[in-house]
């Protein structure tokens, strides 16, 4: 009996090292691998499933974080990386990488206030920054009441919930806060991890959503999908044009359309605080990084085919998952860029 136990590892080894079955069709020796931002993980895995069903090529994307995506594509261990924070053209040139956006999503402040439904609470950028900086401590502070004339706000302390782990979501959120509040910019600043002046840290979007749901009179920031799926009360934000906008795929699209992509070299542009009339201010893009002169041209071409497929046929899937597909003009710009840059 114990002999069988010792045979098990050997059998497993042999089975594992064996050749792949006829059901797998791959490019070269293995499926295309990508890694990086957690923000795009759901939509990329949905696109990969559709792409595999159609063409048989498997594109395996895993979320290890934006920083991980950048370092892995530089090290050459993956075929493409995904990052929420775009790299500057100089860094791209140094790493011999090309960069292009692939999907758009929104980051929303969520609150736990009794009687406040989704979209009812209105906040301006500076007020949001002051809340997260700990300068505004109570819900019935004059600044908040001013923006919400008809809503009854309690005389209670605000519990701030932020991210405990490094995240591209935090980067985009703090980038927005730096844009609208000089005090924030010179204070905590922007980054994937910042020194939060106040509040509790939750792990992942799920952690933050969990805490906000649990702790009364709290406020946090999560990706739009989490707010929707959890039925949470998001706040309406005042955008650069002055109107209070609720997050929705429409307001995200408006932000994408009004952002100045044409003048962004290597698409190095963070879309927050977009100027459009009905644009939602905290809208973010995720960027894909690929080597400009890849060592394995077949794999590079296969990866690019996958992205073209996503641009042309992936709209519905993206919308279903609460993302926003890229505007057609941007897609055309990307395709020209790819043809030029990646040989």
């Amino acid at each position, binding site marked *: 009996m114990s002999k069988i136990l010792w045979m098990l*590892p050997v059998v497993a080894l042999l089975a594992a090292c064996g050749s792949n079955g006829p059901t797998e069709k791959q490019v070269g020796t*293995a499926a295309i*691998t990508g890694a990086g931002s957690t923000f795009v993980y759901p939509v990329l895995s949905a696109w*990969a499933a559709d792409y595999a069903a159609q063409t048989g090529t498997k594109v395996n994307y895993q979320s290890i974080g934006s920083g991980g995506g950048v370092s892995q594509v530089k090290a050459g261990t993956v075929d493409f990386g995904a990052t929420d924070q775009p790299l500057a053209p100089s860094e791209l040139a140094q790493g011999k990488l090309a960069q292009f956006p692939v999907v758009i999503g929104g980051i929303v402040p969520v609150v736990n206030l009794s009687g406040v439904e989704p979209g009812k609470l209105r906040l301006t950028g500076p007020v949001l920054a002051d809340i997260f900086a700990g300068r505004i401590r109570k819900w019935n502070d004059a600044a908040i009441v001013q923006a919400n004339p008809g809503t009854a706000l309690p005389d209670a302390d605000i519990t701030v919930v932020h991210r405990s782990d490094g995240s591209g979501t935090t980067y985009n959120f703090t980038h927005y806060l730096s844009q609208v509040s000089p005090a924030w910019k010179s204070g905590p600043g922007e980054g994937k991890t910042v020194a939060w002046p106040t509040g509790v840290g939750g792990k992942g979007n799920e952690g933050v959503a969990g805490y906000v749901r649990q702790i009364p009179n709290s406020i946090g920031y999560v990706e739009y999908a989490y707010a929707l*799926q959890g039925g949470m009360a998001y706040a309406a934000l005042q955008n650069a044009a002055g109107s209070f906008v609720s997050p929705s795929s429409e307001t995200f699209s408006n932000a994408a359309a009004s952002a100045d992509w044409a003048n962004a070299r290597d698409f190095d542009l963070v879309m927050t605080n977009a100027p459009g009339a009905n644009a939602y201010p905290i809208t973010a893009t995720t960027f894909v990084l690929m080597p400009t002169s890849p060592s394995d041209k077949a794999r590079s071409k296969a990866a690019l085919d996958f992205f073209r497929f996503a641009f042309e046929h992936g709209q519905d899937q993206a919308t279903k998952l609460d993302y926003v597909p890229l505007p057609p003009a941007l897609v055309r710009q990307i395709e020209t860029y790819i043809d030029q840059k990646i040989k």
Partner: protein
Amino acid sequence: MTISRVRQRKIADGIALVFAGASTLFGLVWLFWILWTTLQQGIGALSPTLFTQMTPPPGSQGGLLNAFYGSTVMILLAVAIGAPIGLAAGTYLAEHGRYTRLGTVVGFLNDVLLSAPSIVIGLFVYEMVVVSMGHFSGFAGALALAMILLPVIVRTSDEALRVVPDQMREAAFALGIPRWKVTLQILFKAALSAIVTGILLGIARIAGETAPLLFTALSNQFWTSSLNQPLANLPVVIFQYAMSPYDEWHALAWAGAFMLTLFVLGLNIAVRLIVRRRKRP
């Protein structure tokens, strides 16, 4: 005065016994609470499809077959690599090397590295294996798991052998049995239960490791049987799905957690039965 002293001791004994019972209850309460939570949250996804379908994209139904396979293969390979080396080193520490400098140093360093965060070991294997191979692979994942398993097995087999009384060794030598036979056939048999406990504790530990696998095996959305590619594994899939906003993925994560726990338990029970059968003459 003597009577009250006896009373004192009896009371102390009574308290100790109650405490012992209470401790056991304490441990069991947590166990059932956690198991109940995993069952409750994962019941939505506990069905035969869990074992027949691959990890799905959000919004569709699916299973965890590729994750089950990947985890099983990597754990088995890690044990195949780590257990023999660990057992041999533990034997050295308890037997030949008990009073040598090498033995002391290795034992000490081993205990210190028992507490190394597994992510650091994952990074080490990443630098050594993934970067040299040029890609992530299930093989690198198995190596990382083996390196996490190693200190546990060295420690537990060292302790297991030390507990065997010296009288047994002396009796065997007196009978003229060569040293290697004494160790292999007599000492191992005497310490078998403790050695097996050690290996099982080690497997329980590596079965749930997430962070090191992220840097070595990555994970895989699709099915692959090759160790030379990123390999799906249960802990990473559980982590990614649990931290997502989708309810189907949440249910799959909890169901996977429940199955992972059952797997290690099943392993526990199976090996214990084997050991018990061998002990009976």
